């Protein structure tokens, strides 16, 4: 008798638990639902204020308009180019640096490391004004390569920090064996350490990619030429002080979200791994 009551109580508690979790999830998803809904409402309906969550007359017109808008495909390609190129460089450069910190003792090791730690706390944006002037001097304004250089430099410290933590957990025996057999540290790095670190590298790549894909303030400051814009700038510029065409804004936003959601959903396990590496090492 008591057993049944307990069982019932347990089921009841589980139900409540799911109810609370699901309600929270609805709150989290709610703004996205409105974004999707609005993107399917045609311009005319936005003005007449089709208030409902379900569009009365759904249409994909906003998506075709957004996609065919002047330069939009260019912006998409710009964003993709900047984000992917930056990821390749930042992963290479940070993992090399992290390897040096994990495996070598050299003069300056501690000062450099602690400088990185200290400056990690200072937001990069503190240097934005001189960065703008520097970019101007070096001819890196209105240049996608200019963005790439600043993006890579900005992400090197954090990625180095994460990867150093990971490299230190790798057993040294394999590397030692290669070194004794006459291999160099370049062999150990490229043929042993990097292949063994695929999960950590994947994590670093994903987080960097998302950061670069979404970056706003540097791109806003550096890019004036319309053809050099990245998606965040392009989307922000779609929204005017008066009379924003929200259907268009959100259709463009949803297109910009496609790579992000693809990366996020397909590579989810690396997300969690990476976040916790930061948490426990940091």
């Amino acid at each position, binding site marked *: 008798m008591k057993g049944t009551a307990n069982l019932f109580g347990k089921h009841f508690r589980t139900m409540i*638990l*799911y109810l609370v*979790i699901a309600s*929270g999830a609805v709150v*989290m998803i709610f*703004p*996205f639902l*409105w*974004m999707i809904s609005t993107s399917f409402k045609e311009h005319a309906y936005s003005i007449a204020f089709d*208030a409902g969550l379900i569009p009365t007359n759904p249409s994909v017109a906003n998506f075709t308009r957004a996609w065919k808008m002047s330069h939009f495909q260019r912006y998409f390609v710009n964003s993709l180019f900047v984000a992917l190129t930056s990821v390749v460089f930042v992963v*290479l*450069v940070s993992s*090399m*640096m992290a*390897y*040096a*910190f994990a495996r070598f003792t*050299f003069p300056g090791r501690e000062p*450099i*490391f602690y400088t990185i730690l200290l400056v990690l*706390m*200072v*937001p990069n*944006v*503190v*240097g*934005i*004004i*001189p*960065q703008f*002037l*520097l970019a101007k001097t070096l001819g890196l304004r209105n240049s996608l390569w200019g963005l790439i*250089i600043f993006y890579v*430099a*900005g992400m*090197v410290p954090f990625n*180095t920090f994460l990867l150093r933590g990971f490299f230190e957990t790798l057993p040294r025996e394999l590397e030692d064996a290669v070194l004794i057999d006459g291999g160099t*540290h370049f062999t150990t*790095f490229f043929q042993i350490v990097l292949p063994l670190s695929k999960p950590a590298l994947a994590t670093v790549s994903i987080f960097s990619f998302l950061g670069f894909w*979404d970056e*706003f*303030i540097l791109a806003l*400051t550096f890019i004036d030429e319309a053809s050099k814009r990245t998606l*965040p700038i392009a*989307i*922000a510029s779609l929204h005017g002080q008066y009379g*924003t065409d*929200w259907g268009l*804004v959100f259709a463009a*936003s949803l297109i*910009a*979200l496609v790579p*992000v959601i693809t990366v*996020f*959903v397909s590579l*989810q396990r690396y997300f*969690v791994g990476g976040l916790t590496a*930061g*948490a*426990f090492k940091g």
Partner: protein
Amino acid sequence: MNRIRITQRNQHILTAYIFVLPGLLLYLIFIIYPMAKALQMSFYKWSIVPGNPSKLVGLANYTRALQDPVAKLALRNTIVYTLITVPGQMILALAVALLLNNIVRGKIFFRTLYYLPVVTSWVIVSLLFKYIFQSPKGVLNHLLVNVFHLIQEPIPWLRNASTAMIPIWGLGIWKGVGWAMVIFLAALQTIPQELYEAAAIDGASSWRRLTSITLPLMRPTLVFTLVMLMIGGFNVFTSVYLITNGGPLQRTEVILSYMYHQAFDFLEFGYGAALCFVLAVVIVTISFLQIRFLRRPEEMGL
């Protein structure tokens, strides 16, 4: 023998520098140098006109910041934003993580949903919140007036200085909860189950188990999350820039949005740099205090 060892040692150091150098140079030239330069600029009335030299003004930019009512308001808004969004994110994230830790089926599904705002760009979610909080025809007003009949007239959220920060706070919390939640969830999974079993045998209530086992064991994670969220909070920019752009009448400026306007609209580069440094000093000081007082020394360092 000794000479061979010295050569090997030099070889070792040389290799180390080859590995360090590319990253270090990028970092020094494009991050550290601009930061140092910003510090220098903050002591100047900086001129961008060629041939017109910048003038050393000492601490004038800083005293100006202390006397500038908008700068003071911006600093206040930044601090209030941090004080509201950081505890908001921490508490909600902890609650969600504790709940999710108790379920088996659907855990990853719900984790994904809660994490979705984190991966969505600040630009998109800022515009989304602006849209939701519009007046009179925003989603929230529509719900409050027409669906739930809680109010008669739509609230002009973004046009009132007293309510314009609400969407910005709301966005800060909504976007960040998932991040802290995933970290907490991972930390919860590292706590040995035996501790809870032992506590249950001793008759400890679930509240007691939370305060005596869960929270103390999560301490390093909680401190890490607190520091990171706080840094993020002081850095609030994109949401303000896109939702209110500091308005109405500069009442919702935060440090970075005000700095941005000063620097890139009024070309007050020296003053902008000083505002950046006020922010940097606040952030580094608070981070250090948090790490110093909340964290045990062995959790830090090489």
